[in-house]
């Protein structure tokens, strides 16, 4: 294979990986803060996809507005759901499994509500920008570069918020010790809701960016959810930074693996990587051993 093609593949892997990073980052944020494994994460992705389809492809609202509105709407729905179900469950004993089961139920409900409301047709969203960048033999659609840029900027923004703001401090405190955080005067319930919404928002953002490349449909979340699971295990469950690195790494591994086999073996490649990691470093590639 010519080296430029391989390079192009890797670049594509990084672009897709940045989407995995968005999904995984959101999942990690939620798990890290409230120890909930969110099986409904794929459905918040799906909601983002549908919202941007209606706003941009349907109502022709500029992506500059359509994307933020779609993301905020999905985040608001997530907040409502967290408040009315997960927050209540977490006050009870044995919530660890109860919350997993609840998000599983929520996932199926959202999927099927979407199916009833919007049908099973696969909807396509046009590119936000047309054209292709060519450098030598390497070609890359502007849309893909846009995806990468948006993903990296938004992840960096979330990282900075977590690192430097009061809100971020409160999120980190809640993640490390909910009881001690309460004693500090932090309303951990509110932080949990906000974090859940933020995580879901990242998933929705990934969908708004990917929508032009994949079809929007009620089941579009499941494959991405499974990838996000792989990503958070690679990165160390609950680690935001780890999820970002894990996402990009997974994208590249898939791209390289696919160029050696074929596209349909992509999933097998990524799940095998996951099983291998679990065997060798169960606490993740980048995390430190704990628990």
């Amino acid at each position, binding site marked *: 294979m010519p080296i430029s093609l391989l390079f192009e593949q890797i670049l594509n892997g990084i672009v897709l990986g940045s989407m995995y990073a968005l999904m995984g980052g959101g999942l990690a944020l939620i798990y890290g803060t409230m120890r909930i494994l969110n099986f409904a994460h794929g459905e918040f992705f799906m909601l983002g996809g549908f919202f941007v389809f209606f706003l941009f492809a349907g109502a022709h609202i500029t992506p500059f507005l359509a994307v933020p509105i779609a993301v905020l709407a999905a985040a608001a729905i997530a907040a409502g759901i967290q408040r009315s179900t997960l927050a209540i469950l977490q006050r009870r004993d044995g919530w660890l499994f109860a919350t997993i089961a609840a998000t599983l139920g929520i996932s199926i409900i959202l999927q099927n509500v979407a199916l009833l409301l919007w049908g099973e047709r696969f909807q396509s969203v046009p590119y936000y920008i047309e054209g292709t960048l060519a450098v030598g033999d390497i070609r890359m659609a502007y849309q893909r570069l846009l995806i990468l840029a948006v993903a990296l900027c938004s992840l960096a923004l979330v990282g900075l918020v977590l690192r430097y703001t*009061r809100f971020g*401090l409160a999120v980190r*405190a809640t993640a*490390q*010790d909910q009881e*001690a*955080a*309460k*004693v500090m*005067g932090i309303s951990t319930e509110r932080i949990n809701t906000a974090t859940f919404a933020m995580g879901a928002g990242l998933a929705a953002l990934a969908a708004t960016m990917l929508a032009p490349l994949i079809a929007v449909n009620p089941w579009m979340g499941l494959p991405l959810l499974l990838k996000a699971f792989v990503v958070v295990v690679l990165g160390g469950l609950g680690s935001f930074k780890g999820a970002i690195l894990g996402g990009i790494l997974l994208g590249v591994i898939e791209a390289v693996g696919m160029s050696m086999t074929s596209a349909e073996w992509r999933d097998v490649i990524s799940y095998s990587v996951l099983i291998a990691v679990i065997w060798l470093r169960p606490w993740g590639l980048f995390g430190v051993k704990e628990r």
Partner: protein
Amino acid sequence: MLEVSGLNVKYGDAQVLWDMSIKVGAGEVVAVMGPNGSGKSTLLKAICGLVAIHSGQIKFEGKDISSMPAHNMTSIGMSLVLERRRLFPSMTVMENVMLGAYAKHARDKTKERLAWVEELFPIIRERRDQIASRMSGGEQQMVAIARGLMSGPRLLLMDEPFLGLSPKMVSAIVTLVQAINKRGIAVLFNEQNVQLSFGNAHRGYLLESGRVVLEGAGLEMLQNETVKRVYLGSH
């Protein structure tokens, strides 16, 4: 300033505190002593709203706070130092201390408080960027108390502040608690050791299986025959 009356607390079906009544006056140091599992921690957590109370009343400065959520406690002038310090392990010393001033009302006075706390606990300035979990137990306890003071409480609650510390560290913390109390801050603390608890308090309570079995002035408690026999092992 703190008045607990007829407090009952249950975990599920198991009742842990029975009809408990406790008082802390302004400027007082009060010790609660009891063996493992007697309900000391539960008492403090119930006062702060970390565990729900089944019945009874908790009043702080005349206000009923029985059903106030835990995160509002710092803003009414109360602060709790949890058992085993419970610093945020992967944050720096400074981040931990600053979280003590998280409550809205405490934010404006952060600077002055920090100066005061740093004067009491010089270690905070020396180690400000160290990761909390890499400090020794005694150092962590210092940071935990400092963090508890950052919200400017009028009543400081401490759950076994001497747990697992060397004698030297214990006396250092005793001195600090006295200094804090001199500033007019009332202190309510738990302790399993008779000397450490009643020896360092104006008044004391003795707990057994979730009930107050004895109360009185600190020195009186030390002299009490039952206390002597059961907890000091003398005849």
